[in-house]
């Protein structure tokens, strides 16, 4: 682990976006966009860190990056992924998350609002942007938008374990789910029953009185022994995020998969059945029944194939290739990339990417090497990976 400071001050900022639409009843708690700022005492560069798929701006991964960046002298602003329900409701202009360019535009607009409203004592000398997983791709696209609009004058962008093609990556997670958990309507129920029995037997055999964090940690260690079991945990986590995104998209796009567009659920209504239906639906169904219908209507001339192509990092390929201020970190065993995509990243970024041998997807965030390389990249000290 990289060395870390012992105290990182934290401000929580809740801010309403002027363009926000009326908040649907069931999302009453997501009216404001919530972000977190750790400010230095004096003038300093600002590092904006974007969260991964479906996650808010205060995950444990962000906490690690915040510590490292604050320790290196940055003001640190951590923000949710544009696919996080809180972002979809408070700051998305579409309500239908997953389009790399549109989501990044919304994020760029939100960042301008946030930075304009920061306390005056926070003196910013320069702005860099980074992100992990999908947030990495968002970070690079945000920088490319800024290169044209110039509202924030973002200097450098660092992508940590980014996808190359959004839909190919989530397709892999769908497949992982199908292989490790199953495809039937009762696949989750079967997994749940297995986990329940396992936990109950472990608890019975232990001499603990209550189920607490340390018990769950031990239980996780016994449940997650093989790569397959880790895979199913990753696939399940992704599916649970998708359920929220699917619901929000269906509500906003009025596509009627689970939400009746004319009678959306009220805050007092049970959503158990809706949730049960959604947790059996893969991303491909979100794409076919919510995302594509919505965007095809918005963009005359678009096709499903063009929508998929538009959510590839290729859309900013030229900038990634020619502009020396884009950087990336990846792992050769990252399950969201295939060989061809990793090669594309290497060819496009050249010496501005470092690929570690191990780390999987996000497994090495916070490790000494990852952190020091990231800081070198952000500061413009990076001279290519040691051979």
């Amino acid at each position, binding site marked *: *682990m990289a060395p*870390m*400071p*012992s*105290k*990182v*001050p*934290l*401000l*929580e*900022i*809740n*801010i*309403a976006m*002027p363009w926000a639409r009326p908040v649907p009843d*069931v*999302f009453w*708690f*997501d009216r*404001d966009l919530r972000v*977190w700022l750790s400010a230095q005492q004096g003038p300093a560069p600002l590092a904006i860190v974007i969260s991964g798929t479906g996650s*808010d701006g*205060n995950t444990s991964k962000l*906490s*690690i990056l915040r*510590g*490292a960046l604050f*320790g290196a002298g940055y003001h640190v602003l951590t923000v949710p992924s544009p696919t996080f*329900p*809180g972002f979809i409701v408070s700051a998305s202009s579409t309500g239908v998350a997953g389009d790399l360019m549109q989501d990044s535009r919304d994020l760029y607009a939100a960042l301008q609002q946030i930075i304009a*409203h920061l306390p005056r004592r926070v003196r910013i000398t320069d702005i860099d942007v980074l992100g992990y997983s999908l947030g990495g791709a968002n970070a690079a696209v945000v920088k490319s938008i800024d290169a044209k609009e110039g509202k924030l004058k973002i200097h450098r962008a660092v992508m940590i374990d980014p996808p190359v093609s959004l839909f190919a990556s989530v397709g892999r997670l769908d497949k992982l789910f199908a292989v490790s958990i199953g495809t039937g309507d009762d696949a*989750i*129920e079967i997994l*749940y*029953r297995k986990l*329940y*029995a396992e*936990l*109950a*037997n472990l608890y*019975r*055999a232990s001499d603990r*009185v*209550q*189920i607490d964090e*340390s018990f769950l*940690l*031990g239980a996780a*260690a*016994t449940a*997650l*022994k093989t790569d397959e079991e880790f895979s199913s945990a990753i696939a399940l986590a992704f599916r649970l995020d998708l359920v*929220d995104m699917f*619901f929000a998209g269906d509500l906003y796009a009025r596509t009627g998969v689970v939400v009746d567009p004319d009678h959306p659920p009220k805050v*007092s209504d*049970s*959503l158990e059945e*809706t*949730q049960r239906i959604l947790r059996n639906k893969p991303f491909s169904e979100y794409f076919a029944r919510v995302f594509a219908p919505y965007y095809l209507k918005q963009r005359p001339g678009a096709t499903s194939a063009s929508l998929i192509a538009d959510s590839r990092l290729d859309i900013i390929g030229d900038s990634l290739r020619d502009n020396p201020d884009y950087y990336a970190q990846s792992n050769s065993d990252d399950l969201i990339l295939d060989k061809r995509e990793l090669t594309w990243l290497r060819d496009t970024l050249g010496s501005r990417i470092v690929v570690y041998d191990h780390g999987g997807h996000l497994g090495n965030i*916070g490790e000494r090497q990852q952190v020091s390389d990231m800081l070198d990249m952000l500061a413009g000290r990076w001279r290519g990976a040691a051979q």
Partner: protein
Amino acid sequence: MRPAALVVLIAVALGGCVSQSISIRRVPSENPAAENAAAAESAAAFAAAAALAAEGETAQGARESKPAQPPITPADAPSMASYDPFERLNRFTYRFNARFDETVFLPVSNVYRRIPSPIRSGVHNFFGNLSEVDSVINYSLQWRLKLGLRSLGRFVINSTLGLGGLIDVAAKFKLPGAPTGAGTTLAKWGVRPGPYLVIPLLGPSTLRDGFGFLADYGSLYAIDIGRLYRGNVSWWLGGTNAVDQRANVDFRYYSTGSPFEYENVRFLYVRKRLIEDAGLRGK
């Protein structure tokens, strides 16, 4: 001034600070260095637990001296659906709790968390020590006398050597706390959890555990150690206890942003209790 009035004042004051479009709040700072150490520790614990598991399930059986229970099978797992006949009321209460937490409870506990941690753990230990009395009663009622004796021992040691409960000396004598309550006693007696219940200010519970909570409070009130529960200080004490409890729970309403949070919390809470019940029958 009555604490209830104070609470209202704080709520109004906070409401006044929050403008329509933006609010900025200081929240407890992070300590990545310590978190790093904790993460390394938990990774080690994880590895140790995994190694133990790798030794085989036989080790578990060997430790067990009691008559073997048939293992719980996936078929024994309760359905994923929840028994929640009071759902409308519960959802209302959940929402109320979320708002109350956001405007009063959480801001106050965030201020509380700025107090140096030795003082806070003193407060925490003090209340924990008082509740040992309830644990002694309930372990006795559950006929788990060894654990009851442990709680009694903890209470005696901490009340004396631990300066009235401020220091958890007993934990250093290898007597770590293991609180129990009337909800668990009812479970031991075979009472099922019953419907899910969201208790105002308190949060997720079940009908059985709700009665358990009343019984726990009732017995502490009846015994009234040091006139702390019925005397003039009881309001302050109750408030401090509540804030201390809140500051030690790492939960933020709607931090998941999910429209299914009510369902998710209910699911996890009820499963946790059911597993504890199932475990209780084997102990």
